[in-house]
């Protein structure tokens, strides 16, 4: 395991461009790994039932937003061929405090893997 810790007096990356009032941002990135079902791959193919998938993602976020006071949620899912090491999904949640942002980001991923019509369609050798 690789660990880096630092205390700095300078800026950390760019300014956040966060929602007004946001004190916490949680991001999740799902990355394509170099193997699928035991075989080495160079990319993974994804397919979506696109309008329903977008609609489901929105509904899941709306539902989670009713349970947790979040300020902003943004999800991008890539489909087609996604090369190893590239992001297949990026989830961003902002809230006043960190607990809600963590809870919503993690719960969204659980729900996505159950209820959003997107499929891994096999690896590209």
């Amino acid at each position: 395991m690789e660990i880096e810790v630092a205390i700095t007096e300078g800026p950390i990356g760019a300014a956040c461009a966060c929602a007004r009032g946001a004190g916490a941002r949680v991001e999740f990135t799902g990355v394509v790994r170099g193997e699928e079902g035991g075989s080495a791959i160079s990319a993974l193919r994804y397919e979506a039932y696109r309008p329903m998938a977008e609609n489901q993602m929105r509904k899941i976020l709306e539902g989670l937003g009713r349970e947790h006071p979040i300020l902003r949620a943004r999800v991008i899912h890539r489909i087609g061929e996604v090369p190893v090491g590239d992001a297949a999904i990026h989830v961003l949640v902002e809230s006043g405090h960190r607990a809600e942002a963590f809870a919503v980001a993690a719960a969204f991923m659980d729900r996505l893997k159950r209820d959003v019509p997107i499929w891994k369609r096999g690896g590209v050798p």
Partner: protein
Amino acid sequence: MADVGRGPLAVRVLFFGAAKDACGREGAEVPWCAGMRLGDVLGAVAAAYSGLGPLRGHIRLARNGEFASLDDPVSAGDEVAVIPPVSGG
């Protein structure tokens, strides 16, 4: 089957994931008739595409982009999606 019932009195069925593989196609049309329910649509495609059989216990259906149950009614022109277990993310 794809050519049967084309037109307003049909239901468009879309196959995804393993269901697409099992049927060897992306979609089909099923003739609509009064009183039809989603379960009838699934029965019609399963009869036409026997490869769907092993998946039937794992399939969910959507009607016009929303999950729906086998008992839900279907209207002519509806889009029904056959949704095997998803694996996004």
